[in-house]
């Protein structure tokens, strides 16, 4: 009966109570949304590369190797010689190996030399393969396949010619060997979107007339002559490796790290991604803290509305007292009301989150490659809701204690 009266009392003040609940709901939706984006970003990040067991590069740091080989951030300090690459490729426990050659750029995008195996073995978001939005995978020496962002930013279509610059942010362009766009990849939400992919031989081809990073003056080999040349690379930047059985991963990693001919480094992508997330994840935590503060603000707003309602509800409390309610009953009535408001607000917030997710999910996926799964509420969300209800109860204790004291002092006779 008391619960029913509490609900009826809330309904009687529908406008202010509704506003309070709305504030709580929005803040909870914001908090859960940030939490969702945070975990979504984390898993999207972790999904940047999958299916690859080891990444091999010249010896440096694992995060650095991950950054330049997968995220195309920063530069390799050294290369892996073609000899070492072939030694690793020849090992019996290596199922597949894909070379990566970096160092050139096209406008603001990196150019990556690799083999056709890259399209088969590079996986992201739990094993999804690269797909072509238009065109075909390159099969000519001067063909390129470009990422979705490259195509949209630069307005490229299949068969457009493009010129590759030597080095990064460079003005010396390999004008002699114009490439042709043979295919455009579908959006992945990974750094592949911002990459221009050419064959490993093409990287060699554009450097035929170059020595030590500068063009040999007056020398310009025609394209058809280059086609006849031996274009086996002398080195690659890194390699993605898949093993026959996951059990062999660590043995292979040790073997590569102890490779006697050249200082090499093999890393487990998952481990390095986690290490990297530890660095960039701080910003997400700060965002989460800010949205938690928004929830606290909404609860304090609720406290303020309860406080301001106390005076007009003196009469109501006097009636309760006259009918035999203890001051403690009045206190618990107010706390109960606050908990009801917080509970309705929190559950409504969860509903807002799901509605928002349903609307935003496809947009976020296509625009940012951020995939937010719509799952049933987890333990984590349940804990957030319980915490909001608990915090609502604690916050409401302040006005409730005031009402307790008022009802003790007023007795049942209220001078109106």
């Amino acid at each position, binding site marked *: 009966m008391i619960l029913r*009266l509490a609900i*009826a009392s809330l309904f009687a003040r529908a406008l202010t109570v509704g506003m309070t609940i709305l504030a709580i709901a929005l803040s909870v939706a914001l908090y859960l949304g940030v939490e969702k984006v945070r975990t979504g970003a984390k898993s999207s990040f972790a999904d940047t590369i999958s299916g690859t067991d080891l990444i091999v590069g010249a010896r440096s740091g694992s995060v650095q190797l991950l950054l330049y080989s997968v995220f195309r951030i920063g530069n390799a300090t050294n290369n892996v010689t073609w000899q070492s690459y072939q030694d690793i490729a020849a090992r019996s426990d290596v199922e597949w190996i894909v070379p990566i050659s970096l160092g050139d750029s096209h406008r603001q995008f990196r150019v990556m030399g690799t083999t056709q195996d890259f399209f088969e073995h590079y996986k992201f978001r739990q094993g999804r393969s690269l797909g072509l939005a238009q065109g075909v995978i390159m099969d000519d020496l001067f063909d390129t396949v470009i990422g979705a962002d490259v195509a949209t930013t630069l307005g490229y279509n299949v068969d457009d010619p493009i010129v590759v610059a030597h080095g990064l942010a460079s003005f010396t362009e390999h004008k002699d060997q114009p490439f042709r766009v043979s295919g455009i990849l579908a959006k992945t939400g990974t750094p592949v979107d911002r990459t221009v992919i050419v064959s490993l031989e093409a990287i060699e081809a554009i450097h035929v007339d170059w020595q030590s990073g500068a063009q040999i003056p007056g020398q310009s080999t025609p394209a058809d002559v280059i086609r006849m040349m031996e274009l086996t690379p002398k080195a690659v930047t890194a390699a993605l490796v898949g093993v026959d059985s996951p059990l062999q991963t660590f043995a292979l990693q040790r073997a590569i790290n102890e490779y006697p001919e050249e200082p090499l480094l093999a890393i487990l992508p998952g481990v390095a991604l986690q290490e990297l997330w530890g660095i960039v994840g701080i910003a997400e935590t700060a965002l989460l803290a800010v949205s938690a503060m928004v929830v606290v603000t909404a609860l304090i707003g609720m406290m303020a509305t309860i406080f301001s309602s106390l005076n007009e509800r003196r009469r109501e409390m006097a009636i309760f*007292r006259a*009918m035999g309610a203890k001051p403690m009953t009045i206190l618990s009535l107010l706390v109960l009301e606050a908990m009801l408001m917080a509970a309705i607000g929190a559950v409504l917030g969860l509903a807002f989150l799901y509605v928002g997710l349903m609307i935003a999910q496809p947009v976020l996926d296509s625009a940012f490659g951020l995939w937010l799964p719509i799952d049933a509420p987890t333990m984590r969300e349940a804990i957030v809701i319980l915490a909001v209800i608990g915090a609502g109860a604690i916050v409401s204790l302040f006005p409730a204690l005031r009402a307790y004291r008022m009802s003790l002092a007023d*007795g*049942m*006779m209220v001078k109106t």
Partner: protein
Amino acid sequence: MRRFSICGAFSKVTPPVLELSEVGFHWPGRTRFALSLSNFTVDKGETVLLLGESGSGKSTLLSLICGTILPHKGTVRVAGTDITMLSGGARDRFRAEQIGVIFQQFNLLPFGTVADNILLPLRFAPDRRKRAGDAKAAAAALCEQLGLPADVFAAKANALSVGQQQRVAVARALIGRPPLIIADEPTSALDANSQIAFLDLLFQQASANDTSLLMVSHDPRLAERFDRVVRMEDIAQITRAAA
């Protein structure tokens, strides 16, 4: 011996429903208002009108009888129990069990239904709930006796007229037959005709339930209907510091 037997004979008469003796009270804090009262009783089934101007200490006296405030000295006996000896929680329960209260106006929780309001005291008084038997049926019967239409039972209290609200308040005071009903100027919000009708109902129901009635008013015209009329200034002394 004879005198003792007389006393014995007297003691067989039911003890008064309400008995205050040597009560002294002053509000804490800055208001230097103090009330002292040597003796005041209400017998079982008796109807008493307590006349007093505003500021005569009526409200304080009612709070003392209801046990929402405690006297600093003296005893307040309700239905034979000295409520000054009870703990705060026990006094609240005792009030719910033994006293029906009717205010001047705004008696009801506006957001509750009529049924909610009538049944509210039973929520805090298990014994009274038992006395009421089937509480909903008892409430409906009271509504009928008080001339309330049957369909108000489920209506929200604030949908009723003032006169109807006061009758619901009477039903709430009477449910479970508490031995004492305290009414604080229950007619002041009603017009003259409604006042008479309301008092008729109140007296009729009080006597039907064998309930004592202590009504507080400033209006001496009501006096003739009561068994006894007491003036506030005759029973209580009020002292207040000059403002």
